[in-house]
């Protein structure tokens, strides 16, 4: 049996040691899975992924990336280990150009690979290639999200984590972003997604985990959660069972 792409064991994390927000989470994400983390506001979804990314202190428990313990690995080394994180807001460097954003991310790669990797990303995201010298701060919301994801993908991460990539975007752009995540997942990438946009997230996810008050309250196949009226009412902010929608 292969090790999960990412797992946490009894993880306790939060900004202050005596005020844990994540309170004992055992999470397991299989290789090639697209997992969505759901839950009400303040449930600890963002704190959980930030703790995994090394941005929020871990007070207890462990984080495994494949078979490697990365609990105490510094945040800036995690990208080199194959764990990429895209924060919810301010996820690009607005004062750097598009190309500089990608060059910065590519700096963790061996010099020989950098130019080729950036060229490959431009082929994958042609919108970014049209004017690479443009300041990233001048991009639209959707383009910014694209650049943030491109920055994260430059190392071919084994796990890609995104914190609410749909926040502040129009429905059309959200559909584009989610289609991009689906495509990354279809290519074999393991993706963990924190989302408030429940319907759209469940439509692309293979599995969902519901967090409440810093603990996992429920987990299951995305399609089964959509059809469960109790889950829908209690945790997903909807009163009727949902039908999966294609983004």
């Amino acid at each position: 049996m292969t090790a999960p792409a990412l797992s946490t064991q009894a993880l306790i994390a939060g900004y202050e040691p005596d005020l844990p927000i994540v309170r004992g989470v055992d999470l397991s994400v299989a290789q090639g899975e697209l997992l969505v983390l759901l839950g009400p506001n303040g449930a600890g979804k963002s704190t959980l992924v930030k703790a995994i990314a090394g941005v929020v202190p871990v007070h207890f428990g462990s984080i495994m990336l494949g078979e490697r313990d990365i609990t105490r690995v510094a945040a800036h080394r995690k990208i080199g280990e194959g764990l990429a994180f895209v924060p919810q807001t301010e996820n690009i460097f607005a004062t750097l150009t598009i190309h500089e954003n990608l060059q910065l991310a590519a700096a963790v790669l061996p010099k020989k690979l950098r130019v080729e990797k950036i060229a490959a990303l431009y082929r994958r995201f042609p919108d970014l290639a049209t004017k690479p010298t443009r300041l990233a701060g001048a991009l639209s919301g959707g383009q910014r999200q694209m650049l943030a994801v491109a920055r994260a993908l430059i190392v071919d991460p084994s796990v890609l984590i995104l914190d609410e990539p749909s926040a502040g975007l129009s429905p059309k752009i959200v559909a584009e972003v989610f289609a991009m995540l689906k495509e990354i997942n279809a290519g074999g990438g393991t993706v963990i997604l924190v989302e408030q946009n429940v319907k759209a997230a469940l439509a692309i996810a293979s599995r969902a985990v519901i967090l409440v008050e810093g603990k996992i309250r429920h987990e299951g196949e995305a399609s089964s959660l959509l059809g469960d009226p109790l889950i829908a009412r209690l945790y997903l902010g909807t009163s009727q069972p949902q039908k999966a929608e294609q983004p």
Partner: protein
Amino acid sequence: MNPQFLMDGLIAGAMIGLGAIGVTLTYSILRFANFAHGELLAWGAYLALAVSGALGLFSTTLTRPIGLFSFGWSLPLAAIIAIVLTGLLALAVDGMLFGRLRARGGAVIILVMASFGASLALRSLLEFIFTSKPAYYTKALQIAVQIGGGLRATPDQLLSLGVALAAVIAIHLMMTRTDIGRSMRAVSENSALAGIAGVDVRKVIRVVWFVGAALACIAGIMTGLLVQIRPYLGHDLLLPLFAAAILGGIGSVPGAMIAGLIVGLSEAAAVQLVGAEWRAAVSFVILVAVLLLRPRGLFGRAA
């Protein structure tokens, strides 16, 4: 109006500009105004004096003036060593003081007050070691030569301007064309995101201290060579340094240099137009005017 003020202003401005680059870099990346930065100029000047004196003891040929200049090879060699030592001094101060306060999550005001303390301690230590009597790298006299347009300059002054220009171009290229420069700009904008993107923020902070201190050392040596070496050499430049850093726009290397030249030229013009006693007021007026009218400076980004 005597056009010579242009040359005086350019030379003073180049020294201010080099110092202001260090101020602007530490301000934009460490997010506090380091009032001990002036002391790095003075320490740089004295370290070069000490090393140059020691080299002169080993070989008198090293003290023989090079061509038209007033100094021998001992000074450029000492300058290289002093740049490294001043950089290490800045790293030591950060390790002992500022780094510890940062690790504790100290508020900006605590860092600023600590920098006042560090400034006092560093300056007093200089006075203790070297006394407050002015010192000179060389006793050789230089005659200013005509350089056109009614301007006169000594070879030392022209060399200093050239070195300042080369230093600014080198730092600008480093900031815009290299991995470490991009990392510095990224940390300046968002240090948390820089960490997530793989930038070692602690390494960037060390580079910022070292680069800022190296430029301060060059500015200190220039001041020592063209004026004199005193423990208060950097402290007296503090207001012009901050005026230039803020006028140039926090974080902008070319901005700090251009603003340094503006401050230097304004001071020199004020000396001619209203009198030497008003020289110090110029930086203050510029500082207040920029903060009131255009707080982001000439080349700074909007908040």
